[in-house]
């Protein structure tokens, strides 16, 4: 049951901000344009809580599509404060998981020949083999299949409705390449990630009863970060909300569209706002950053945005740090000078983030930090625990339970057990399968409490005692079992990377660790102080970015995301006399005010 008092309180607070209040109470299709720090998540969660309390009656529910699992977990946590628990009725997750768990798994069995029975989700290797094999069939030349596939896959994700004449009419060979590839996968009982929303689209389009079923279950669809979700979701939304009866509540910010490489396109959000039947609400305030930062940041986009700061907001600091020397010197400068200074100013480590354009830059910072033995928490692609992997996070939670969590049920065994059920059976299992799994898990965890092991030793036993068996009985369509082997490798004692289980389990956000992450992964987060590392010429933008006008626009938006993360302090670190061109206008703007 929802917690009505908390909701009332939240609604009361929102009254102070006219636009947010209007958005939360909107009863038609609604698009909320929400700039950095504008209270986007708060608006979204309050809107969800309000509709669940006032409009959506059990057993109907809501669906909320987010950009990745991390956002989904964040939303779940925020919603639990309103007493809204994930009870299996509400859906909160990615568009892929929506397609898989709400459309393909329940209904594909009613449509003959659509997907192989007991299909699995292909891993990277399986995809590669299918691409190569399909390439041979369609082109049969010695060119690189991968290059051609990039074009083919772009077409695949853009031209969602294949019944249109353009699918085969335009670039026929690419269409055949895609179809051949999919056929190769199907022959082996596989679908890939991109298949999920595409298959779901086809199912809804061709079977009106599926759309009706979704309308019945989810009268309102929420979409977070609309600008990042690409064509397939856009077409799905069209089918469900504008051709169907589902009400749409979308939030997004075209300025923060930074996933062009996955098919995202800021124009899709724009097109929603131009519809007659959609109410568009622009949030005006930036509650996050100091006034200086708010004013200067839009310079990065080369456009005007006019976001306002609430009265009494601090000014904030923007500090330019030219460093003589290469990236290594810049990294040491950050560790030796900036961090010390921030500590002196009383900024807590967990409120500091070092942001960089790509993961390889992160490796340079890590080197410098480890030399000084400074604790950090890395959340980009090179991090130990992949935050977007449910399985990796399950392993981590198990470690937490063993290293003391069992005393306070943090996490609770029940939670671990539910995660295990989901990972192994995708939540579809019989009573006895459930009991067996519960037995295995508690046995393993209890034993782990008494044997003292390093992380690596424990992971090897985890692999041997649970994973080997689980992977053989697994019925889940998405399997990430390799994640455990990867972790074993990453903690290899031969490479001197092993650690205590306590340390391993605490590798997530803890106290006293500063955050290392890429611009991309920093989206949606905020810190008191942000240090931008490597704002050099040739990196920001790099050669690839300047190839097209579109990609140049996107890298500007990426930098915009980075500079809008701090609340009060923004440090920019770059090579002296070799700074990024983006800094010019930015610098000029800071001098004006």
């Amino acid at each position, binding site marked *: 049951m929802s917690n009505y008092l908390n909701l009332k309180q939240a609604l009361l607070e929102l009254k102070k901000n006219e636009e947010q209040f209007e958005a939360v109470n909107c009863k038609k299709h609604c698009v909320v344009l929400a700039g950095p720090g504008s209270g986007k998540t708060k608006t979204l969660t309050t809107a969800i809580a309000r509709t669940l309390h006032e409009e959506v009656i059990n*057993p109907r*529910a809501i669906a909320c599509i987010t950009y990745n699992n991390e956002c989904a977990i964040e939303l779940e946590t925020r919603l639990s404060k309103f007493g809204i628990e994930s009870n299996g009725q509400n859906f909160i997750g990615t568009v892929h998981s929506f397609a898989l768990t709400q459309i393909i798994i329940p209904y594909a*069995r*009613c449509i003959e020949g659509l997907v192989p029975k007991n299909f699995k989700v292909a891993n990277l290797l399986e995809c590669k083999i299918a691409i190569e094999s399909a390439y041979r069939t369609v082109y049969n030349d010695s060119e690189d299949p991968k290059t051609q596939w990039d074009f083919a896959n772009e077409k695949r994700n853009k031209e969602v409705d294949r019944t249109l004449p353009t699918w085969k009419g335009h670039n026929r060979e690419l269409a055949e390449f895609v179809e051949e590839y999919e056929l190769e996968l199907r022959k082996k009982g596989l679908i890939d990630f991109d298949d999920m929303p595409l298959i779901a689209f086809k199912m809804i389009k061709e079977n009106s*009863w599926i759309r009706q*079923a979704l309308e*019945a*279950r989810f*009268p309102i669809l929420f979409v977070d970060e609309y600008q990042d979700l690409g064509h397939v979701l856009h077409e799905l939304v069209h089918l469900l909300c504008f051709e169907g009866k589902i009400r749409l509540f979308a939030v997004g910010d075209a300025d923060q569209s930074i996933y062009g490489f996955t098919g995202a396109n800021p124009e899709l959000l724009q097109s929603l706002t131009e519809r007659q039947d959609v109410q568009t609400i622009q949030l005006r305030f930036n509650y996050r950053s100091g006034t200086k930062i708010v004013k200067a940041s839009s310079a990065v986009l080369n456009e005007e945005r006019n976001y306002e700061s609430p009265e009494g907001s601090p000014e904030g600091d923007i500090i330019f740090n030219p460093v003589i020397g290469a990236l290594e010197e810049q990294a040491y400068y950050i560790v030796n000078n900036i961090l010390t200074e921030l500590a002196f100013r009383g900024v807590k480590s967990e409120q500091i983030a070092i942001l960089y354009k790509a993961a390889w830059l992160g490796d340079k910072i890590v080197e410098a930090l480890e030399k000084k033995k400074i604790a950090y928490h890395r959340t980009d692609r090179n991090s130990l625990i992949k935050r977007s992997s449910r399985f990796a996070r399950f392993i981590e939670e198990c470690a937490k339970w063993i290293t003391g969590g069992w005393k306070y049920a943090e996490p609770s065994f029940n939670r671990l057990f539910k995660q295990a059920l989901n990972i192994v059976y995708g939540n579809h299992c019989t009573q*006895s399968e459930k009991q067996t799994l519960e037995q295995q898990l508690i046995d393993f965890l209890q034993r782990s409490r008494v044997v003292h092991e390093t992380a690596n030793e424990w992971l090897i036993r985890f692999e041997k005692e649970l994973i080997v068996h689980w992977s053989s009985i697994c019925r889940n369509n998405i399997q990430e079992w390799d994640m455990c082997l990867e972790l074993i490798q990453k903690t290899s004692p031969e490479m001197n990377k092993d650690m205590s289980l306590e340390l391993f389990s605490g590798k997530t956000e803890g106290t006293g660790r500063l955050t290392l992450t890429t611009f991309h992964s920093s989206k949606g987060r905020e810190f008191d102080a942000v240090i931008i590392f490597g704002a050099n010429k040739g990196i920001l933008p790099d050669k690839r970015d300047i190839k097209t006008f579109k990609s140049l626009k996107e890298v500007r938006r990426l930098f915009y995301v980075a500079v809008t993360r701090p609340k009060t302090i923004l440090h920019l670190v770059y090579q002296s006399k070799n700074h990024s061109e983006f800094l010019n206008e930015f610098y000029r703007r800071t001098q004006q005010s």
Partner: protein
Amino acid sequence: MHLKNLKISNFRNFESIDIPLKGNIVLLGENRVGKSNLIFAMRLVIDQTLSDSARQLKISDFWDGCDLFTKPKIEVHLDFTDFEADPYLTALLTDYRLADDPHTVRLSYMFRCKPEIIGLPTSSEDFEFNIYGGGVETISVNNQVRRRICLDLLDALRDAENQLGSWKNSPLRPLIENAMAAVDSTILTTISADLEAANTKIVEQPQIKSLDDSLSKQILNLSGKAHDLKPSLRFSNADPLRLFRSLGMYIDGGKRSISEASLGSANVVLMALKLEEFTWRREKNERNYSLLCIEEPEAHLHPQLQRSIFKNIFKEKDSAQALIITSHSPTLAAAVPLNSIVNLRLKNDSTKAFSLANLPISDDEKDDIERYLIATRSEILFAKGVIFVEGDAEEILVPCFAEQIGHDLDGLGITVCNVGGTNFNPYIKLAEGLGLPFVVITDWDPLDGTKPALGRARCVGIWDSRVEVNSTISLMTEKGRNFCETATFDKFSQAWAKRGIFLNDETFEVAIAKTPNLSELLLDILHEQNFGPKRTKRIEEWRENITQIDSTQLLAMIKDIGKGRLSGKLKKKITNSESIHPPMYIHNAIEYMVENV
């Protein structure tokens, strides 16, 4: 939404049944045939009050014919359809659609041997149950579903008086609690004060006061001060928050409490309250669909009352609830819609179920049958076999002929059904649909010989009707149809006699007239009519030689008497005489029937 199909296998009386359903269900069948077991099977799937330990069945729950070595499974599959118009039901059930029919959802119960048991299972611990949806064992059914799609049972041994009398179990309780919760608290306080005033007033009466005091003293003596119960005499608890507990239902203008009602009235009240409770729970969004099972609702009810109650109950078209009723009452059976009837019959050690839900009959035919059922008190629904005849004469005489050859039709549960003409088809469909063995006694009707005898097409029509209802009967071939058009009467009637249709070579009365002994009795009756000299003379000639009997003349005379009156007279004469042998084709029909029940 409505129930569409029910499948049960290997459970108690049922080896395997698979019956279509349409909304409400009326289960008919003799005692011990398994009506309650059928309801219990459905409860295994959806009754939320049934505990897990009750769902863990026993080995003895397997159908007796099961060979445990073959690891049989008990399965119950309940299919619903027409749920898509209701978004709440759709949201609830959409995961359980059937792969080959997405507009139907299936909820299932299965009880089977655990996979790790090798060899013969010996106790119920070797078995496990599973409740799942969509026909796929790994799709488990959400608890919500069992809470929101409910089955309530009023069993045959329900104690209506007790249920209504005790506050805890009363179906009235949630209704009153709900209504009282909405009453303004200041009003409650006023009422409470009034009540307290009345309490004080009565206790102040010296006679009452002295009784109160002496009782209190007595109790105190027994229990001691530490455990003083502080008893007092009063009308009712006057605490505003407990006021509703004193509210009850009274009958006869408030003179008597409901617990003093007659057994019959209490039953009516109980059913009404249950239905009201369903509506209320739906409004409260606790439930989305209710199945109410009532065993023998006719208990303690006068036939007229039965008819009016069940007419009303079945008239209500509420797509969010359905009734499942078991009954022995012909009155009730006649009042319910034909397509709600499910007939259970014991055949070769297992109970078979026959449903009239999808009986292929036209609306006119349905009206005919429903009228017939009312007129005959739905005798056919409870029979074990039926002899279909064309008219009153046969209806009167066939039982009497049977007695002559030593069979008591009533005792055997065989009923004679007079279809009042020659349109047997709707009745044939009904009997076939009910799984009833039957024979047809009919006339060859050669007419004047210029056209084919009417009996030819009639027999083919009857066969086609059977095929329409029962898919296990094979369609008549072209060759067979040709035979029916061309065969001589002898060949034709012999062939059909093997298939349960028995023909005379002209009409019933002529056949009687041409049967020795019977012929005499008939001519006696004709003689007694004091016809004119011409007819009298003709009757005398016929007496000499029955082969001389002229059908046209004979029928003209019978017409003057009236077929019904004639058969009445004939029946009297047959009963009074010794060993009268019926016409051969009727004899064969009766023997055939008796053999097949």
